[in-house]
């Protein structure tokens, strides 16, 4: 509760500072519109913005779901098999050396202007943090549990399923929390490079037509969506793995 009050206070302060800057510096509307102008545009264009926001939200959720699932499976494969580790790990690190941003045009070329190029962008951007957070946690199972399981006559597969995976879920959760913030970045980059829908597309369009108030309105909606997604993922992780 106190945290919410504090957050509201900070937001209010930022809005006042924003308005003061616009008023005092006498900035024209096409350079930096004030918060009043932005929120009025947000209200007037709510249907337009909501339509684009829905597209972006679908891309982000699909990318997050697929990336998390792929990261989950990859981390287990890496943990189970030394062969997979020696083959996949250098590839994982190399994939991080390539800026995902640079891949966006190629993905658009391969997958087209539709949903999938953005979903794959979001997926690529979250795959590494999810995989590495979960993999590290899988490799840090407390020794005592593993030894107890051995004396009990457990098979490696059951040790993985019953002990190592559940013990590593807090690590997976921290990967997911990062992913919730990164996934929208991937989707927006995808939309900038080539799209006909989505908040990124709308922002680019508004910018090109000097409708800076609309661009800011879309940006605010994007930020709110990201915060909501992060809060939802965080709450779900806390509920499930109370860490």
């Amino acid at each position, binding site marked *: 509760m106190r945290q919410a009050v504090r957050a509201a206070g900070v937001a209010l302060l930022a809005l006042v500072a924003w308005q003061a800057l616009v008023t005092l510096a006498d900035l024209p509307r096409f350079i930096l519109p004030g918060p009043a102008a932005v929120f009025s545009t947000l209200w007037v264009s709510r249907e337009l913005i909501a339509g684009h926001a829905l597209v972006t939200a679908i891309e982000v959720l699909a990318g997050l779901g697929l990336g998390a699932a792929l990261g989950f499976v990859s981390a287990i494969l890496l943990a189970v098999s030394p062969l997979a580790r020696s083959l996949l790990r250098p590839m994982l690190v190399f994939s991080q050396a390539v800026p995902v941003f640079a891949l966006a045009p190629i993905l658009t070329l391969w997958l087209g202007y539709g949903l999938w190029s953005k979903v794959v962008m979001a997926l690529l951007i979250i795959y590494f943090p999810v995989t590495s957070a979960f993999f590290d946690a899988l490799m840090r199972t407390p020794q005592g549990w593993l*030894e107890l*399981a051995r*004396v*009990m006559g457990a*098979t490696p597969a059951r040790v993985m399923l019953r002990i190592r995976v*559940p013990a590593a879920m807090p690590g997976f959760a921290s990967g997911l929390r990062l992913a919730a913030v990164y996934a929208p970045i991937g989707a927006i980059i995808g939309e900038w490079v080539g799209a006909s829908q989505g908040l990124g597309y709308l922002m680019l369009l508004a910018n090109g037509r000097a409708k800076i108030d609309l661009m800011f309105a879309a940006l605010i909606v994007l930020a709110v969506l990201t915060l909501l997604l992060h809060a939802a993922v965080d709450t779900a992780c806390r509920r499930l793995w109370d860490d």
Partner: protein
Amino acid sequence: MNAAPSLRLAGRARIDGTAVFGPVALDVPGGRWTCLLGPSGVGKSTLLRLLAGLGDEVAFEGEIAAGDGAPLDGRMALMAQSDLLMPWLDIGANVALGARLRGEAHPHDRARAVLTRVGLADHLGKRPNTLSGGQRQRVALARTLMEDRAIVLLDEPFSALDARSRARMQDLAAELLAGRTVLHVTHDTAEAARMGHQVLLMTRDGIASASPPDAAPPRPYDAPETLAFQGQLLRRLMEAQ
């Protein structure tokens, strides 16, 4: 549970070329409680880990065998200093961990019965983090009992408990593990004096036997004979190098 066999370990152990313990001979009689007492760092835990089949990092030269000649695999249960409860499982599932890990059907009725014997039947559906340290160690004891193995290896299982919980756990464990071959590693002279049918002292010189009082374990913690034996054990530890 079949008849509890005796255990024998004789040999020497090294880790990365450094000797952990020299040539020693450990004989654990079947169906009795043996305490292996010694200072920290003397290799007691390594010895217990070797018996449990866990010492992958240890280079061991010698023999490890059961008195009946049958292999040890699948005939041992282990209880460690840490309770090793899984925080994501409730108490009932923790007690039945062995069955879960071997892919057997969940033995609900037995889990309940065993928890009743350690006085925790009401806690069946609770998570470990809602229990006290003493209760958690009782759950660990219940999990050990669930395995129903002829040989039970105890690695300082009560050393993290306060004095009162420890004395109660000792009584409970002595009652519930009676008739099994128990090897109990401890550095607590009072515990060894109470618990062992046989008490062995492990020092740098090797393993030597002490003569416990005639009373059957668990001996009263305040009986003069128990206290005198405890003093004698401590003296021998102090005099060893």
